[in-house]
């Protein structure tokens, strides 16, 4: 055994036998003394003299005992234990201070960890593909869709061309199909992809094989890959599923493999079954140019997205010339962006906004802790001076303050972990569906560590301040010498806090005002008392158009008869969403020159006559559709007010004829309906026209919405409606909700972001108030004598109070000034999150500054009131 080990062994043993160690030492030294005493006595000294002489010779016995003892024990461990006990005692004595520090740290760490955990999968975490930074989404960006798309003909061209991509792949845009699972039809998520799809993303099936070129040929025998989840759910993870035949949309499909558990579609769509797209390049270009795809690519090594965009320019221009109708060419743009941007484009800004505000909050929390610890340090100079006077070395004092700061930091960290967990739960329950990847959110260890480290550093840095300073004898007397620099530093900290909290408040007030505008904007229809039932017919069951028409007719008859159902209508879509729009430039007016070519998109819906009454959309001119028109061969048309104005200006549209698709089929205009929100709540509305749903129409899609304006309770009506649907098709899933709920879903995300930012702003404000209060209280405490003197020579309490308020006023004003500049700068970056509110909205800025100033005045009131109540007699006597 090495000597070091022997030593450690003995010491550890001693650690567990401390009492025995103490007793042995005592015995050993006593024995020595006794022996010496006996010897001296034997040499003839009187007993008393002998005792004294032996003790004299022995020297400082406690010190010797201590020296030996320290050899055996871990001194630092004992000191640490002593420091910890001392700290806990001090905390118990100042529960207010302790609570404020721990709560501040807890909130700062907790909130930032929780928010980071939510946004991390969106902004930072790697996507589950090898070399994910090479993956891009590429395609056309036009008014048709929010995301880039492609058409099959262009895709074929790009695959032939010399592109900056090492691999280009595509998937069909749609995504559901019917599958027979043990004789019951199920609606499942299907994704049709080209043969090189998985290769491009660097993914291999965990079971079976990937698609090959053969599988992806047109009319090839159908094969499929199962998603891991679907494989588990539908087949219990049985490996014998390979080679089995499934029936998907009435086609026999052979299972060839299973996707990995971690696989996700690049556009984050659901996937149960993946099929080869089996695109047919031999079809006429016109057919393939209306075949919609999503295209993704992997960049060549070393090629940046900007370079890729540049090199794709000419290829794209050539495709536009071939595949985009001339009237739309001006609006088609090339989009090449990272896969991550494609996935989170709508929530990117909101995520950054949340992250930014929570980091500001964390910073404010650190500042606050620093401030509080500095205040306490000042209050403890006397104590430290006393301890130094009693013989404590500087290292020892430093070690003790370090221990205290660490314990505070650790307690705060523990509180932070708890808070983070709770907040994350709350976030997940509050968050709208649109905030993607929330199922991926978990407490992120890195963030927790980061936040902990930040606050610990703050706690250490400022907690150490009193120990770093040489204890001064003057401090013993309670005189405060040379503390001005630190006071100035603390005032600066408060000013910073005020500035941060103003920025947070401005952000929050902008968001809230924008949310308010969003809530209170006119929709153009009345969602109250409107209940909607939406459904999508299964493909296979209603494949012949006749079956569909029959279903819709029968459904209409049944739903109309529901007692108390009120006004009933059937439509293929419902606001505030639009349908798939058509280019404005497709419209032709009889006996008029062609319309302007760059008109954007026009929404349209197929509706039954009751639609306008059911939704409460006023008919401004002309009339609504009538029931008897539905059997006639006419195609009556109702325009939205905006569309009518754009097409006809001041001319009356009623009675004019419109050709909608350049098809020679002329539709008479019978009425003008008021404008409604039809493009979500935040986007400006598109012009719109309505067509009458005929009894024999072949234009009917498989999706439809039944609308009721009813005095009935929605739950009651829902029961009736479900019964009628079940009578027609028991396996048809129907979603029933009020129109209010549908509209509200469009406000969820802004509300979520505004709520969180609002909460952060409130917390920031609270921290600023605590900081201000702390500094002022400290100031008053330090100036007690001075105030006492001034009051003794005639100052009025009001003067004293005003003076304290003046201090607060100066810092607040500086803080507000800095904060306003910051707010102006930052508000611009969140412009995209605002709805009808300018980033420099004076009302929001004023409101934020007002709230801050009032809070500051309130926070300053308590210490200034206390100062004004100082009794000069007591103040002067106290020292």
């Amino acid at each position: 055994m090495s000597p070091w080990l022997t030593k450690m062994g003995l010491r550890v043993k001693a650690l567990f036998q401390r009492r025995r160690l103490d007793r042995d030492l005592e015995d050993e030294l006593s024995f020595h003394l006794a022996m010496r005493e006996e010897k001296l006595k034997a040499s003839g000294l009187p007993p008393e003299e002998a005792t004294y002489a032996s003790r004299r010779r022995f020297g400082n016995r406690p010190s010797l005992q201590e020296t030996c003892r320290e050899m055996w024990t871990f001194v630092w461990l004992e000191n640490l234990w002593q420091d910890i006990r001392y700290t806990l005692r001090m905390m118990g004595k100042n529960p207010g201070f302790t609570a404020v520090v721990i709560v501040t740290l807890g909130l700062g760490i907790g909130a930032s960890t929780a928010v980071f955990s939510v946004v991390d999968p969106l902004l930072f975490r790697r996507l589950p593909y090898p070399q994910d930074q090479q993956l891009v989404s590429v395609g056309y960006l036009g008014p048709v869709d929010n995301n880039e798309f492609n058409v099959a003909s262009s895709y074929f061209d790009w695959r032939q061309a010399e592109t900056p991509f090492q691999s280009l792949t595509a998937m069909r845009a749609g995504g559901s199909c019917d599958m027979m699972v043990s004789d019951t039809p199920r609606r499942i998520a299907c994704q049709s992809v080209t043969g090189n799809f998985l290769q491009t993303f660097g993914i291999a099936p965990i079971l079976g094989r990937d698609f090959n070129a053969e599988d992806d040929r047109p009319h090839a025998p159908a094969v499929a890959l199962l998603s891991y989840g679907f494989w588990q759910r539908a087949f219990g993870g049985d490996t014998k599923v390979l080679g089995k035949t499934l029936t998907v949309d009435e086609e026999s499909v052979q299972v060839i493999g299973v996707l990995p558990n971690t696989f996700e579609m690049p556009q984050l769509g659901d996937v149960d079954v993946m099929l080869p797209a089996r695109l047919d390049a031999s079809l006429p270009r016109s057919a393939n140019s209306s075949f919609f795809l999503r295209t993704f690519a992997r960049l060549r090594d070393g090629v940046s997205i900007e370079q890729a965009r540049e090199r794709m320019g000419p290829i794209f221009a050539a495709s536009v010339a071939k595949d985009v109708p001339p009237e739309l060419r001006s609006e088609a743009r090339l989009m090449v962006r990272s896969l991550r941007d494609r996935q989170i484009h709508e929530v990117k800004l909101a995520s950054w906004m949340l992250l930014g505000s929570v980091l500001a909050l964390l910073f404010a929390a650190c500042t606050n802790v620093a401030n509080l610890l500095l205040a306490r340090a000042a209050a403890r100079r006397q104590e430290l001076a006393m301890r130094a006077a009693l013989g404590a070395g500087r290292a020892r004092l430093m070690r003790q303050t370090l221990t205290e700061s660490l314990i505070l930091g650790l307690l705060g960290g523990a509180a932070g972990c708890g808070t983070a967990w709770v907040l994350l739960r709350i976030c997940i329950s509050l968050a709208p569906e649109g905030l993607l990847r929330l199922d991926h959110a978990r407490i992120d260890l890195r963030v927790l560590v980061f936040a902990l480290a930040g606050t610990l550093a703050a706690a250490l840095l400022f907690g150490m301040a009193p120990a770093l300073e040489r204890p001064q004898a003057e401090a013993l007397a309670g005189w405060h010498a040379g503390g001005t620099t630190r006071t100035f530093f603390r005032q600066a900290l408060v000013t910073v806090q005020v500035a941060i909290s103003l920025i947070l408040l401005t952000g929050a007030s902008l968001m809230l005002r924008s949310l308010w505008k969003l809530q209170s904007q006119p929709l153009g229809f009345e969602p109250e008392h409107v209940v909607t039932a939406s459904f999508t017919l299964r493909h296979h069951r209603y494949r012949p158009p006749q079956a569909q028409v029959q279903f819709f007719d029968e459904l209409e008859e049944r739903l109309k008869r529901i007692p108390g159902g009120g006004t009933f209508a059937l439509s293929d879509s419902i606001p505030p969403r639009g349908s798939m729009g058509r280019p404005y430039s497709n419209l032709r007016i009889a006996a008029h020159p062609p319309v302007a070519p760059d008109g954007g998109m026009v929404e349209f819906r197929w509706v039954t006559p009751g639609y306008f009454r059911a939704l409460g959309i006023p008919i401004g001119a002309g009339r609504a559709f009538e029931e008897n028109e539905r059997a006639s061969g006419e195609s009556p048309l109702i325009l939205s007010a905006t569309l009518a104005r754009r097409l006809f200006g001041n001319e009356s549209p009623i009675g004019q004829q419109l050709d909608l698709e350049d098809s020679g089929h002329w539709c008479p205009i019978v009425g003008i309906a008021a404008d409604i929100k039809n493009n979500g709540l935040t986007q400006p509305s598109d012009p719109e026209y309505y067509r009458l749903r005929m009894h024999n129409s072949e234009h009917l899609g498989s999706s439809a919405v039944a609308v009721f304006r009813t005095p009935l309770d929605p739950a009651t009506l829902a029961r009736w409606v479900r019964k009628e649907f079940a009578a027609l098709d028991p396996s048809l899933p129907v979603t029933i909700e009020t129109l209010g709920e549908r509209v509200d879903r469009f406000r969820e995300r802004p509300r979520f972001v505004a709520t969180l930012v609002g909460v952060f702003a409130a917390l920031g404000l609270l921290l600023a108030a605590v900081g201000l209060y702390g500094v002022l209280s400290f100031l008053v405490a330090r100036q007690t004598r001075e105030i006492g003197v001034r009051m003794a020579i005639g100052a009025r309490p009001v003067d004293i109070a005003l003076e304290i308020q003046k201090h607060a006023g100066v810092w607040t004003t500086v803080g507000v000034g800095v904060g306003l500049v910051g707010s102006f700068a930052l508000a611009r970056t969140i412009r995209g999150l605002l709805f009808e509110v300018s980033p420099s909205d004076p009302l929001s800025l004023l409101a934020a500054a007002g709230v801050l100033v009032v809070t500051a005045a309130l926070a300053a009131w308590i210490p200034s009131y206390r100062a004004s109540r100082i009794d000069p007699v007591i103040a002067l006597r106290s020292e």
Partner: protein
Amino acid sequence: MGEKQPNPGELLRDTLDMLILQALKHRPLHGYAIAELIEQTSEEVLRVEEGALYPALHRLELRGWLASEWGTSENKRRAKYYRLTAAGRKQLVEEAAHWSRMAAAIARVMETA
């Protein structure tokens, strides 16, 4: 930490360590006996301070050169007896050799100069 410097004029620490080891060469002794032995053998020239003796004993024990056990002294008191360990014996041989070399060297210098 805690190992105090000996006062000038007292035995140097290393020397004291060697003397302690030497004192225990033939039989186990308690602390008092070690001090007495050194003083008597040196004919009262060397005086062992308790303040140095006990830290030295504990240091040597922790280093593994001494082992200790509790026994009963000649006058029937409980006393802590130290004895040399194998490592301690080896250390003594080394230190003794070193010491004689040093002493001889110093003597030579003193005689010739």
